[in-house]
C-alpha cells in the first residue's frame, strides 16, 4: 500500500467566463501522504482554493487526474464516490456560513452521521457529544444554535462536524483567517492536537505564512494557477528557491524584534 493518500497529476482547470477563459489551475501535481500536513500558500486568485476542490473531487479537472487512495475520483461511479466522501472532509474560512443556522450545535455535528446512515439516533447523539467535547465545546451548550456561539467556537463546531465521519483527510481552507489573534492560536493548538491524536492528514490552505510554517510538514506555493515551489517546510522558509516565494517571504512584517526574520 503506497503512503500516498491523495495525488493530483498534471491537473488543469479552465473556467469559461464572459471575459474569456481563465486557467485557474495550470498543470499542477501535488501529493498528500498519509499522516502528513501539506501547506498550500498563495495570494488571492492564485488557484489554491480551486486546487483544494479538485483534490476533493468537488470539481472536475479540465485535464489531468486526481486519485484518492488509488482510485480516480473522476472515473468513479457516483455510488462509489459516495462511499469515499466520508473519508475527506472540509473546514472553511467562515464558520457561521458553513454551519446550518437552524440546526443546533449538536444537530450540525449529527447531520453527516445521519446522511451516511451511521448508527441510530441515540448513538449519533453520543458520538456528537464526544466530538464537541474533543474540540473543546462545553457539552452543556450542545443545544444552542450557531449564532449563539463566538466565531472561534463556531469554528470548533465546524471542525467537530468535519471529524464526525472519521475522515483520513481534512482539507482546511483558511480556517483561522476570520478569527481574532487569541482565538486563532487556540484553533491552531486544536489542529496540532487532533493531528497527533487522530493521525489525520491535512491539506492546509492559507495566505498566512506563519500559520503554515507552524503546522505543515511540507509546503507548496502557488502563483497565478501554477505551482512555483514545493519543499519541506524547513527548507522552504530557510532557503526559498523561487523568486515569487522569496517575494512572499520578504513581504512578511515581523512582530518581535528578535524574531527569526530580522
Amino acid at each position, binding site marked *: 500500500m503506497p503512503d500516498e493518500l491523495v495525488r493530483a497529476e498534471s491537473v488543469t482547470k479552465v473556467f469559461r467566463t464572459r471575459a474569456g477563459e481563465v486557467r485557474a489551475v495550470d498543470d499542477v501535481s501535488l501529493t498528500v501522504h498519509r499522516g502528513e500536513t501539506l501547506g498550500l500558500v498563495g*495570494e*488571492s486568485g492564485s488557484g489554491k482554493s480551486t486546487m483544494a476542490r479538485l483534490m476533493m473531487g468537488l470539481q472536475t479537472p479540465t485535464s489531468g487526474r486526481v486519485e484518492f487512495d488509488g482510485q480516480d475520483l473522476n472515473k468513479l461511479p457516483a455510488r462509489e464516490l459516495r462511499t469515499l466522501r466520508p473519508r475527506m472532509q472540509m473546514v472553511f474560512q467562515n464558520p457561521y456560513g458553513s454551519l446550518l443556522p437552524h440546526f443546533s450545535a449538536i444537530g450540525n455535528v449529527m447531520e453527516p452521521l445521519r446522511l451516511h446512515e451511521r448508527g441510530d439516533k441515540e448513538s449519533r447523539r453520543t458520538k456528537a457529544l464526544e466530538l464537541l467535547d474533543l474540540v473543546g465545546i462545553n457539552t452543556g451548550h450542545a443545544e444552542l444554535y450557531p449564532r449563539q456561539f*463566538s*466565531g*472561534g*467556537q463556531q469554528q470548533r463546531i465546524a471542525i467537530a462536524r468535519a471529524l464526525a465521519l472519521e475522515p483520513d483527510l481534512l482539507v482546511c481552507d483558511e480556517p483561522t483567517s476570520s478569527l*481574532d*489573534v*487569541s*482565538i*486563532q*492560536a*487556540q484553533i*491552531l*493548538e486544536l489542529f496540532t492536537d487532533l493531528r497527533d491524536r487522530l493521525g489525520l492528514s491535512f491539506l492546509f490552505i492559507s*495566505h*498566512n*505564512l*506563519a*500559520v503554515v*510554517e*507552524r503546522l505543515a510538514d511540507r509546503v507548496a506555493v502557488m502563483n497565478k494557477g501554477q505551482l512555483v515551489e514545493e519543499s519541506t*517546510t524547513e527548507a522552504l*522558509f530557510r532557503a526559498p528557491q523561487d523568486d515569487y516565494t522569496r*517575494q*512572499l*517571504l520578504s*513581504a*512578511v*512584517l*515581523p*512582530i*518581535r*524584534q528578535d*524574531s*527569526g*526574520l530580522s
Partner: protein
Amino acid sequence: MSEDALLSVRELRTTFRRDGAEPLTAVDGVSFDVRRGQALAIVGESGSGKSVTMRSVMGILPRTARITGGQALFGGRDLLAIGDKELRKVRGRDIAMVFQSAMEAMNPTLTLERQLTEHLLWHGLCTKAEAKKRAVRALGDVGIPDPEKRIRTYPFQLSGGMRQRAMIAMAMVTEPALLIADEPTTAVDVTVQRQILDLLAELKNRGTGVIMITHDLGVARYFCDDAVVMYAGRVVERAPMDRLLDDPRHPYSVGLLGSGVEVGGRDLPLRPIPGSPPDLSHRPEGCPFHPRCARAELPRCATEQETLTIGPGRDAACWKVAVDA
C-alpha cells in the same frame, strides 16, 4: 492635553440603546493623543471598541448609539460638541478615513473622478477643473498607472489592490491633517500590503497624523510610532510601539503577543489566551480581562481597575504592573 497633539480624545464614552435592556457601553472612558506626522495604532480584537471609538470621533455612529461623555479636541474645538453641521466641514477636509474594503467604501455607481473630486468641490476648496487636476495627481501619487484614463473608470473595473490605492487617493486629495485608517491592509495580499503602507507613510512624512486601527501587530510595528491596546471598550495599555511589542506589560497585551504566530517562530511555544472576549452585555466587573487572566487576584481584580504610569508615554490598566517594577 499635550501641547503637540493634533487630536486629543479624553474619557470618551459611547453607549448603544437596546430594546428592553440597559444601554450597552461599547466605549468606556477611552483617552489618547495623536501627534502631527506620527501614527498611533489602536490594537484590539473584534468587539474591543476600536471602530466605535473612531466612529464616535468622526460623528458617523449608527442611530442607536449615543456619546455619553468625553471630549475629542481637534484644532482647539471639541468634535463631540460642535454639532453635525460643523463636523461636516471637518470631515473629508481636515479628517479623512480609509476603510478595510474599498469595494464597500466607494460608490459603485460613480466614476473615480466623481468620487475623488467630491470632497474638494463640496468643501469649495477649488474649481472643477483644478479639482480634476488634483484628483489625477492623487491617483498618480498612489501609483495608479495612466491616471488620466483611469479616472474615468468605475471601482469594479480595478483590481483589489488598485481599488485600495484609489480609496487612499480619495482620502489624500484634500491633504487632511488627520487620517483614520481602519484595517487598511487586511483585505489586500501581502505583497501589496507593504506598498499600501509605504503610501500612507508618505502622507505621514508630509505631517499628517494617522490613527491606524489594526489587529495585525506586524503592520502596527512597521507603520506606527505609538500604540494603545483596547479590550472590552477600555484602553488597557498605552506605549511607544516598539516597547509594547518587545516588552508588553498588561497581562492582556502579554497574551496577545503570546498568541501571535509569526514566520520564524515555529519552535516558539504557542500561548493562547483561554476563553474569549466578553459579551459587552455581560462585561465583568472590575478589570474586564480578569476572568481570562492567569495573574488575576480576587477580589481586587473583580472590583477595581487602576491605571498606572510605568514610564515615559507608558501606562497600563493593571495594578499588578506595579509589582513587576
